[in-house]
């Protein structure tokens, strides 16, 4: 099915199943511990051996020797694969040009250099520690973003947006801001680390793994092992989170495959938590130089943004400019993204890549501008709303209700009763502050397919390689099928995550739900057409409802259509370029927070949070809300605790476990309220839906940082906003 025009009134507008707050159909499996995650698929294949990975002890240089003799002699050891016995296995996917294994060169700390296979996990781990690896260190490395030319704005990168005449508009602006903000590297820190079981059958390999993008992974594994893609099967029905860390295959999959081939047994490999931090990927650090000019009425006239970020390879870094080019009005704009070649592990996508760090900085800058202008920060944002692409005013937003997000949020939150003078409101020992920030994230889509099978009993089976990374894909896809076929969700079963099924959009970039449900729609329409053919009527004349298909006065139960046989249909949704040419399709939101800062100690605690989201049709308010409150929680982490600390001498992220890298705990998260505007965006998909899982994170940290300023009068421009950065400026005790 091609989606070449905006959606009109269609089956989804009846919203009997879609849009309903149904509980996740995989929920009982998750809470009862019976959803099988990759490493626990003990029954997937017999004879599984354990591979334990070894990461490089240095950040840059080469390996001159690996003495495996002691490890080989250790109890239970079945085999050892070292990096020296393979050519580099690298650049498996265009968006992730990194080296996973192979060769003597060390490009970053904890690069995978060996995997030791044994009968038990403990034997493999013990033997792995017996490898004697000789390194030759290369001291000509750079691990400090602040010391790169890019950090001081000295880069030859072309602007990503250069509109009007920024320099003169900024020079002549009545009110100006010129500040630098920094955001640290962040770790996805999903619950389930990367894990894979690999088994070979001749030149065919199956990987039971934890991966967000099954088709990308299938192609990547084929390249890694130099086999045809059709000889690769990936199966990843359940993931314990990903947040972008599992968009691409990682060294666990490569090592499991290499090891299984070498020892002639299925091998399972998981990355120990410390290797997740330095072996895989992370959100890059940024240093952002922001300049905003406005007239005395608060209209922005000039936006300058320069983003420096760490990247090991050509594709890497946190591109913080992404939201800046389109979020706010402003006729004169000069925006540059400048990745700096550094020797930390490569940075890549982490939930709302670009928007997260960009809005962490820019939404503080907006708060500072509002203060300079003497404007309410909500009013200042409203004054600079735009309904068109500010870089190309001929292109409108397809459906943008940012102003309504702000207004609805302000009313619900009680913004008019907020503390207005920084540092002026106390509740006992605590200083109380309020902060607001805007949220912006595009609503991309990807081609997505599914297969649907009408069973002889009138129930429906849906199959797709789409993944559910904890987001609710199973549920919203089943809801879609039920809606289109006139069934209840209980009539629909659904299998996901297997590369034997049709290729879907996968989970990433908040495109998953919007694309995959449209793919299910396409497959269901194909099935309806087959049914129409069997009934010898036009598909458009049929009504599917209550488990039956109605034509005029005739109603036929779906169980009778196939006459004892199943009827299968398969199709994909393909999105035409009208969607990107005629309009900007994006999602919008506003975050409001109340924070408390201890006047003596500077401890920062969140009191309440509100998000208002404009994301088109909400497919399931329950799963969507879970997405947003999870994202808000991640925003709290980014605001006040999360930082991968860089050791600039040894070149690695030091706090590489979940004791050292703190993410929020339950006690950090107070009441969270989420409001979804009742909007639909016909430019987005046939369901008029857009993603929401990444939008929920955008701007959260800045709202908190602005709240801390409002509570204390101390402006912190370097994340995370921790007490050591404010304690010196708190009132004397």
């Amino acid at each position: 099915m091609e989606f070449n025009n905006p959606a009109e009134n269609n089956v989804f507008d009846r919203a009997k199943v879609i849009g309903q707050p149904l509980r996740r159909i995989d929920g009982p499996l998750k809470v009862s511990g019976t959803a099988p995650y990759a490493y626990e698929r003990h029954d997937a294949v017999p004879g599984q051996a354990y591979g334990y990975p070894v990461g490089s002890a240095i950040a840059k240089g080469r390996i001159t020797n690996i003495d495996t003799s002691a490890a080989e002699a250790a109890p239970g050891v079945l085999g050892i694969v070292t990096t020296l016995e393979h050519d580099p296995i690298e650049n498996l996917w265009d968006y992730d040009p990194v080296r996973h294994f192979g060769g003597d060169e060390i490009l970053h700390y904890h690069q995978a250099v060996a995997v030791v296979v044994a009968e038990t996990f403990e034997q493999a781990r013990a033997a792995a520690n017996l490898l004697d690896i000789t390194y030759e260190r290369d001291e000509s490395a750079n691990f400090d973003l602040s010391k790169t030319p890019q950090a001081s704005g000295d880069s030859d990168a072309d602007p990503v947006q250069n509109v009007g005449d920024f320099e003169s508009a900024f020079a002549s602006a009545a009110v100006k801001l010129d500040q630098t903000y920094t955001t640290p590297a962040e770790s996805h820190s999903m619950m389930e680390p990367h894990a894979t079981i690999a088994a070979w059958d001749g030149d065919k390999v199956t990987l039971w793994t934890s991966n967000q993008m099954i088709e990308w992974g299938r192609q990547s594994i084929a390249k890694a092992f130099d086999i045809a893609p059709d000889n690769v099967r990936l199966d990843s029905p359940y993931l314990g989170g990903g947040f972008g860390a599992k968009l691409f295959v990682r060294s666990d999959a490569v090592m499991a495959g290499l090891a299984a081939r070498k020892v002639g047994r299925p091998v399972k490999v998981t990355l120990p938590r410390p290797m997740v931090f330095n072996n895989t990927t992370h959100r890059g650090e940024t240093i952002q130089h922001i300049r905003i000019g406005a007239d005395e009425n608060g209209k922005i006239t000039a936006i300058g943004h320069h983003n420096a970020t760490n990247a090991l390879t050509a594709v890497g870094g946190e591109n913080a400019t992404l939201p800046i080019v389109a979020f706010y009005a402003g006729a004169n704009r000069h925006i540059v993204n400048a990745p700096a070649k550094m020797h930390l592990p490569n940075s890549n996508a982490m939930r709302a890549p670009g928007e997260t760090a960009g809005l962490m900085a820019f939404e503080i800058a907006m708060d500072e501008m509002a203060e300079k202008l003497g404007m309410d920060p909500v009013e200042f944002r409203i004054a600079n709303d735009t309904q068109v692409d500010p870089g190309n005013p001929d292109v409108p937003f397809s459906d943008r209700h940012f102003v309504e997000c702000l207004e609805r949020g302000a009313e619900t939150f009680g913004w008019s009763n907020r503390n207005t003078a920084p540092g002026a409101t106390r509740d006992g020992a605590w200083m109380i502050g309020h902060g607001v920030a805007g949220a912006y994230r595009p609503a991309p889509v990807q081609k997505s397919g599914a297969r649907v099978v009408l069973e002889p009993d009138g129930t429906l089976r849906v199959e797709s390689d789409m993944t559910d990374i904890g987001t609710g894909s199973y549920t919203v896809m089943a809801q879609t099928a039920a809606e289109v076929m006139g069934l209840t969700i209980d009539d629909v079963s659904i299998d996901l995550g297997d590369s034997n099924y049709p290729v879907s959009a996968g989970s990433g970039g908040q495109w998953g739900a919007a694309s995959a449900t449209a793919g299910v729609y396409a497959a269901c329409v194909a099935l309806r057409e087959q049914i129409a053919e069997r009934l010898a009527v036009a598909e458009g004349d049929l009504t599917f409802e209550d488990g039956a298909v109605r034509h005029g006065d005739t109603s036929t139960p779906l169980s009778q259509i196939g006459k004892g046989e199943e009827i299968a249909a398969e199709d994909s949704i393909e999105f035409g370029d009208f969607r990107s040419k005629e309009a900007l399709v994006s999602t919008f939101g506003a975050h409001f927070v109340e924070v408390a800062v201890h006047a003596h100690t500077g401890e920062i605690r969140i009191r309440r949070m509100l998000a208002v989201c404009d994301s088109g049709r909400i497919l399931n308010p329950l799963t969507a809300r879970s997405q947003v409150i999870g994202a808000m929680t991640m925003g709290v982490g980014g605001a006040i605790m999360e930082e991968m600390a860089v050791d600039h001498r040894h070149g690695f992220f030091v706090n590489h476990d979940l004791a050292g890298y703190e993410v929020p705990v339950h006690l950090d998260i107070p009441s969270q309220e989420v409001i979804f505007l009742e909007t639909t965006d016909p430019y987005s998909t046939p369901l008029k839906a857009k993603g929401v899982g990444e939008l929920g994170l955008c701007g959260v940290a800045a709202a908190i940082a602005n709240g801390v300023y409002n509570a204390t009068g101390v402006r912190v421009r370097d994340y995370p906003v921790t007490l050591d950065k404010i304690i010196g400026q708190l009132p004397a005790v």
Partner: protein
Amino acid sequence: MRAFSYERASSPQAAAQAAMARDNAKFIAGGTNLLDLMKLEIETPTHLVDVNGLGLDTIEETDAGGLRIGALVSNTALAADERVRRDYGVLTRAIVAGASGQLRNKATTGGNLLQRTRCPYFYDTNMPCNKRAPGTGCSAIEGFSRSLAAIGGSDFCIATYPGDMAVAMRVLDAEIETVDPDGETRTIPIADFHKLPGETPEVENELRPGELITAVTLPASVGGRHFYHKVRDRSSYAFALVSVAAIVNEDGTGRVALGGIAPKPWRDETAEAEMPNGASAVMRRLLADAKPTEENQFKVPLAERTLAAVLSEAKG
């Protein structure tokens, strides 16, 4: 984790003998710290002596009007004990400020005293660390040191003692009872139990080879209001940036010990004599010898401000 042999001891003295009889033996009780360190091969014992079957899990009143806490009393049980909550509130508050419910169920009184540092370089076996591998150097002093010691460290090590329970015990003048392989018992004041790193950061406490902690005794209640203010970036399940254990009397006198700032619970009886004069006066003495790094220098004003918060709360 390296392979190890394992035995269950039948009595405290037998446990001490068993540990003495082999090179590189360790006691194991709750295992909440030791097992993690073994997995990372930071600890590599070849023999474990399991002391869980030894009893030592009761809290009894002493003739002196205090409490004797068996070494195997869990953190959960200790914090919940009615007498502890009534007379030693600082101890309950400190314990529940640490770890998580699950860990406190397993962690024991004796084991908690022996909790090892959370210095990130200690935890990464690729990195130099004088505590883990004596003579290799300290990575932390010029490295990521935000969470590390601002006082009491040396040129060899700036690791902090990470626990909470012992900070409260320090302010309560607890004493540690032990038995050695010969069956000899002795009592070690908690002030002397943990050692400063000096040139031997690998030596963390006063225990001799084979010596087993059997109990911790608390003197009779000293009254006063009890506080434990633990400052950290997140609200729970995190080690202290700074913590203040304090007992404050009606007349403004009292006791104070600091956690999270030094290689051992940090208390100085002459400094706390200044408590009636306020937090600043106390800290001028207590932290007079502070040698913070650039990254952890905030701990010095933070300690003072945290004590000020406690004193303010005591007044209020």
